[in-house]
């Protein structure tokens, strides 16, 4: 039984995300930039995961498979970061508190190792969740 840890998820911009959305969201480079979760060293250790391991991140609102990487802008133990994009948005808290703005930052999530599950491409991930038939 794989270990599961709980962290507070935030999402946001990175410069790699910015470059990737301009080079094409259909491309693997988008997945490389945004289909990741940046975790603090201590949290990776608690999870018992190596760097660059695929993990499944689950919240009350959904779950998604991304690659766990070590935080580039840490330390931030207890906080995990997924760059803004479809991967983060598969699990963020959509509650707007009637302001129009979802709660993109501050979603409690659990992370577990999912070494054999693939990280989907951006467009593919969204189409799959929306049940869009692709010809």
């Amino acid at each position: 039984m794989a270990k599961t840890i709980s962290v507070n998820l935030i999402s946001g911009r990175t410069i790699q995300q910015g470059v990737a959305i301009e080079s094409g969201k259909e491309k693997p480079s988008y997945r490389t930039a945004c289909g990741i979760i940046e975790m603090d060293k201590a949290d990776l250790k608690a999870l018992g995961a190596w760097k660059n391991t695929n993990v499944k991140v689950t919240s009350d609102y959904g779950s998604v498979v991304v690659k766990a990487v070590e935080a580039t802008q840490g330390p931030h133990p207890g906080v995990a970061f997924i760059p803004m994009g479809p991967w983060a948005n598969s699990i963020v808290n959509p509650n707007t508190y009637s302001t129009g703005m979802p709660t993109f930052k501050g979603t409690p999530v659990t992370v577990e190792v999912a070494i054999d599950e693939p990280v989907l491409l951006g467009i593919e991930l969204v189409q799959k969740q929306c049940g869009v038939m692709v010809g």
Partner: protein
Amino acid sequence: MTKTITDVICPFCGTLCDDVEVVVSDDGKKLLEVANACVIGTEKFLHSQSADRVTKPRLRQADGSWKDISYDEAADYTAKMLAGAKKPLMYGWSSTNCEAQSVGNEIAEIAKACCDNTAAVCHGTTLIAVQDIGLPTCTLGEVKNRADRVIFWGCNPAHAHPRHMSRYSIFPRGFFTGKGQMSRKLVVVDPRCTDTSKMADVHLQIEQGRDYELLNALRVALKGEWLPDSVAGIPAEKIREVADILKSGRFGIIFFGMGVTQSLSKNHNIDEAIALTKDLNEYTKYSIMPMRGHYNVTGSGEVFAWQFGFPYSVDLTRGFARYNPGDSSSIDLLTRGEVDAMFTIGSDPGAHFPISAVKGIAKVDSVCIDPHLTPTSGVSKLHVPVAFNGVECGGNCYRMDNVPIDCRKVVEPPEGMLTDEQFLVMVRDRLRKLKGAA
């Protein structure tokens, strides 16, 4: 021979750098080199030239495949969709010029649609706060020329607005700030040790979601009142120390970003930050500015405001304008199942909305106008590729400090491709006929 075009405006982020240089081929068709832009801006200019670009409108078929159609057919489809819908949502607008936005507003008025821009998932809550309490702000040149206290709260310009610090906020030597960075004290508030916080004189590594409390504590500290031992993970002494740093400046600026607009308390975080700015003006001079994301999200708000009276989340369904985020805002409309058609332009809600809202898009008739392939085009029924605004056509845009800057066209779009504005005019004229409008 090549040509160098100077004073080019970068159509990526709200920093709207206007000193970019682009080298193009003699015939003006190929974009060869980009200078002065950041890596993202450079990629934006260069990607416009990619060989695998979609150049024709495509309609999704029953089997899920795409079929190429003409712009005329695409405009017919779009006009019919809008004419037939009871509550269409026209969303995006932040990556196109004000001229296209203006035509879009005519369409929305005729169609009696809801219209909204990307502030919905960016600085919409800032706008709510501004409506509640106001906004003492300034242009970016004021920061460059005067600011000796710079606060980045919940924003990370090193990643999101890469040239902001060198052009306006930290490094430039201005009229009263001849020593550049040495003239300024930098305070960063962020739950992470970001690449921006690494440059700071003071980094407050705040407990995520407690910005409202920390801002309140700073206001209390300014007034010299009682404080609990620690607020948002920051000790009271540290809070008082930072309050003194803020107070001792001659001209201060607070820049804030999605760290506050998208965290718990949202508009209230900004409301309290504006209140702090207002309080600081009792001692010295302070301004506050949202780090707007898309290069022309600000312009969309301006055009909405002068034409309809509200900066975003405008509901025209009753034939006149109404506004109330929570009711008329895109995410709420989509997750509550309030709309029956989706029109997207100049943005990618498919990638940037929570998946529950994206499912709302996939359920209804939908058109996506975008030069790129995106998750939005991936779930839409019609994808209309257009020329890259700011690269293949010009037009007015508004920088994050509301300063208007006219974008330049640097290369020709691929043969036969239309601009946003041209396509929208086709839709508008068809819609007018369908609706019998004046």
